[in-house]
């Protein structure tokens, strides 16, 4: 999921994953005063119950998001934005939810009473929808809503001629392997039959990407019309979750109130306000002044210090190492960047350790260089697939040698390609207001300059649009953003690297990677998945398409009078359980 956070704003797409080993070290999420003296901590199973308590009914909670929801369709490439997901967690219901431990998913028993794999040949999954489950307009939730999710997203590498080739989807791992979605029992039983095995079947129809109401889609033209236009451009008027949208004031706030037709336990809060603050530096003061109740900014040195100073006023915070990771990507639509030696040289010149020291390392000494694009250091199967290739080492001499050997001239002054064309200045983008990313880009430009390459750094206020179809010719040559992971590390990342994948913005293509990703996604054996994705990871390093920088700390701050709010460093974010938030009994 593209993570486009406030000042910072990352972008990320459904990606990574994690199946954290039970023995992974570290304490649970930091609480008041922060865990481990303010340093981030790896997440463990106790993260699922952190800050638990009995909540009172009523009250208004104001939660900060950092970008205006410009597109309301999370399944679309342009709408696949973390900030929007934080709102829609409570609107569009999914079969499974990602838990804060970043390892497990939890069945949404409000929506379905069971989800069972009834056969492996052909692979068949049966979902029993709660008979009481209805949309807020009274229309029952049925297999048709599942069918709509499938039909709009089934065009992909395994199914090039799907139902909706023109639906602008973010990713389709799994959906393109489904043979049929059918209903029975009055539409309340859904049977999904797969053409080819799909190990991560629990990632479908939920896990941050909830079901959208098919009956509304049917009123708004073809599949493509409803998907690309209606759901993307319309503020949701119908909810299948605990809350519904009462009002949306562009660039200011989205107000949610309990959905009176909700079929599960009613939410505790009487109002949940998502306040849009695009300047992260304004967030701590807004929290201190009680104008908001919780913030989830990208941590920066000053910001963390400001929040720490509020401990005496009852402000708690969690600084965790979850499934977010920062990275540089090249845009291979630029013909000069189609040159492997040039990409290798640029990434070799990048000193990742120095970048960390100048950015997140200033407030979090636990942040280390990340050497894998699929697994985090605390997860089983993590291996270093980057160091051996020399990428990210900051070795300028080695980088120059790569270029010289490849026939480049003017190395260190004004780089000229082997065909005699001068390498033009590249445009590098970062999310507006994100000072950490700005520093990362500035450092990248300095490294490139030593090779004779000019990199012009500029910001974008709409990362999704810069990366995707709204800017079909692409607005960047090099970009920095973050992927936000899910527990499904294979299927969740497939569209990032598969040829033509919805999240493969830079146009990367390697048949071997396609084949291995297909294998990994098909397998339900974690060991097979790990082996395959690590082979892919090594190939990605050799192809120097993307360079992982570090596992990103997440930072949640809130007043301790509120219970059940906790960090969830997956693509769903802390609002995964907003229906449980409320004032503690002692407040």
């Amino acid at each position: 999921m593209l993570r486009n956070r406030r000042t910072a704003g990352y972008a990320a797409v459904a990606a990574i994953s994690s199946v954290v080993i039970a023995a992974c070290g570290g304490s649970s999420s930091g609480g008041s005063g922060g865990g481990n003296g303010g340093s981030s901590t790896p997440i463990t199973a106790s993260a699922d119950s952190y800050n638990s308590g009995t909540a009172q009914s009523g009250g208004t909670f104001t939660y900060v998001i950092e970008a205006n929801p410009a597109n309301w369709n999370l399944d679309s490439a342009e709408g696949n934005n973390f900030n929007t997901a934080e709102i829609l967690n409570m609107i569009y219901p999914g079969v499974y939810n990602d838990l804060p431990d970043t390892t497990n998913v939890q069945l949404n028993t409000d929506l379905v009473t069971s989800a069972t794999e009834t056969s492996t040949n052909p692979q068949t999954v049966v979902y029993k929808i709660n008979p009481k489950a209805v949309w807020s307009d009274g229309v029952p939730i049925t297999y048709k809503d599942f069918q709509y999710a499938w039909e709009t997203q089934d065009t992909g590498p395994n199914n090039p001629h799907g139902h909706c080739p023109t639906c602008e989807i973010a990713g389709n791992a799994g959906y393109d392997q489904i043979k049929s979605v059918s209903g029975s029992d009055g539409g309340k039983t859904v049977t999904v039959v797969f053409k080819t095995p799909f190990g991560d079947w629990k990632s479908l129809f939920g896990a941050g990407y909830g079901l959208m109401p098919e009956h509304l889609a049917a009123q708004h033209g073809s599949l493509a019309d409803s998907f690309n236009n209606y759901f993307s451009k319309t503020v949701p008027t119908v909810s299948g979750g605990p809350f519904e949208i009462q009002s949306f004031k562009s660039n200011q706030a989205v107000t949610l109130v309990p959905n009176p037709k909700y079929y599960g336990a009613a939410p505790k809060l009487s109002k949940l306000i998502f306040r849009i603050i695009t300047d992260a530096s304004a967030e701590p003061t807004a929290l201190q002044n009680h104008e908001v109740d919780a913030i989830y900014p990208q941590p920066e040195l000053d910001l963390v210090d400001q929040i720490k100073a509020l401990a005496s006023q009852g402000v708690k915070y969690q600084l965790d190492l979850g499934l977010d990771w920062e990275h540089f990507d090249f845009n291979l639509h630029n013909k000069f960047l189609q040159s492997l030696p040039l990409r290798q040289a640029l990434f070799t010149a990048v000193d990742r350790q120095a970048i960390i020291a100048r950015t997140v390392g200033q407030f979090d000494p636990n942040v280390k260089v990340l050497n894998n694009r699929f697994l985090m250091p605390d997860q089983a199967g993590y291996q270093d697939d980057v160091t051996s290739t020399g990428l990210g080492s900051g070795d300028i001499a080695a980088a120059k040698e790569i270029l010289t050997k490849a026939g480049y001239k003017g190395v260190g002054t004004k780089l000229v390609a082997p065909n005699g064309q001068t390498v033009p200045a590249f445009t590098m983008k970062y999310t507006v207001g994100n000072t950490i990313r700005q520093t990362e880009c500035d450092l990248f430009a300095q490294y490139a300059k030593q090779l004779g390459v000019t990199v012009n750094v500029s910001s974008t206020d709409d990362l999704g649009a810069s990366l995707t179809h709204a800017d079909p010719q692409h607005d960047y040559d090099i970009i920095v953003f973050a992927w936000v992971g899910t527990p499904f590390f294979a299927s969740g990342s497939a569209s990032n690297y598969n040829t033509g994948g919805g999240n493969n913005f830079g146009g990367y293509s390697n048949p071997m990677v396609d084949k291995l990703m297909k294998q990994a996604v098909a397998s339900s054996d974690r060991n097979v998945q790990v082996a395959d994705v690590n082979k892919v990871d090594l190939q990605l390093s050799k192809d120097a398409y993307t360079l992982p920088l570090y596992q990103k700390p997440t930072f949640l701050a809130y007043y301790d009078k509120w219970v059940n709010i906790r960090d969830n460093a997956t693509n769903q974010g802390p609002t995964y359980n907003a229906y449980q938030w409320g004032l503690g009994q002692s407040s």
Partner: protein
Amino acid sequence: MFAYAVKRLLLAIPTLIVSTFVIFLICASFMNPTSFLFGHGQPPPPRVVAFERHKYWLDQALLPRYWHWITGIVVHGRWGPSDQGFNIGHEIFSRLWVTSRLVIAAMVIAAVLAVIVGVISAVKQYSITDYTLSFAGFLFLSLPAFWLAILLKEAGIHLNTSFGHQVFDTIGEQGFGSGAGSFSDILSHLILPTITLALISFASWSRFNRGSMLEVLNSDYIRLARAKGLRNRTVMVRHALRTALIPMITVMALDIAAIFGSAVVTETVYQWHGMGDFLLTSIQKQDQFAVLAWLLVAGFIVILFNLLADLLYAWLDPRIRYD
């Protein structure tokens, strides 16, 4: 007076027309709403380019495009296409209302403060009071708007803590919880940004008013008024201040453009969604007609205030209308 007002109004109309053409020329020259099509990859299909160019009227020559735009506004109330998903006319007037609250409140406070401080400084020239007020004036004059805004935010939060309840808000032009949109809610959001903007304007105006008052107080007719035995209050208010205010009004009217400029910064720090936010977002998105709308409205306001200044000038000094 009526003839004078009509004359000034008629003069303002061609000024506005010329300014619309100038801003259109500038925007048409430096902004291209279809630039996003031409990144660094393969050029888009000609059909796509033609469609986008037609959408933004770029398939028309400059003068017909200008005519299309200006008649659209005047005749049909249409402000041109925007890629931000809103009706420009509706959006800009909504934003103008937000910014107007801030600008008008700041101008009134700044003007009242400037007159009081200017008069006191002039009357007590070279006294400790004068030096103190002058120091304060120069201090606020030299403070960057964004920094003053941040300082005031901090001060507001500390005062809230001292009071034990929330008097000042620091984010947005209104709240969204209970009491949202009420007078007290809007007022609590308005105070700090208004003070920020007012202090910056007040600083220069008070210095100007001090100089103006000193000039008047040293004039022969004031000495004559005093020699006639008029009460000091009458001399100061009816004869000195009224005369000193004439150039002050001109300065205030001309400063409206600068205040709008400062409002952009103030709105950014306090996360207001007024004209400033509208302009910045529109420039970032290369939304040509939205930028044009902002410039047109801002230009109209500047011309309007200049017209008001001329009329007030004539009212305060009857000799002027006979020029």
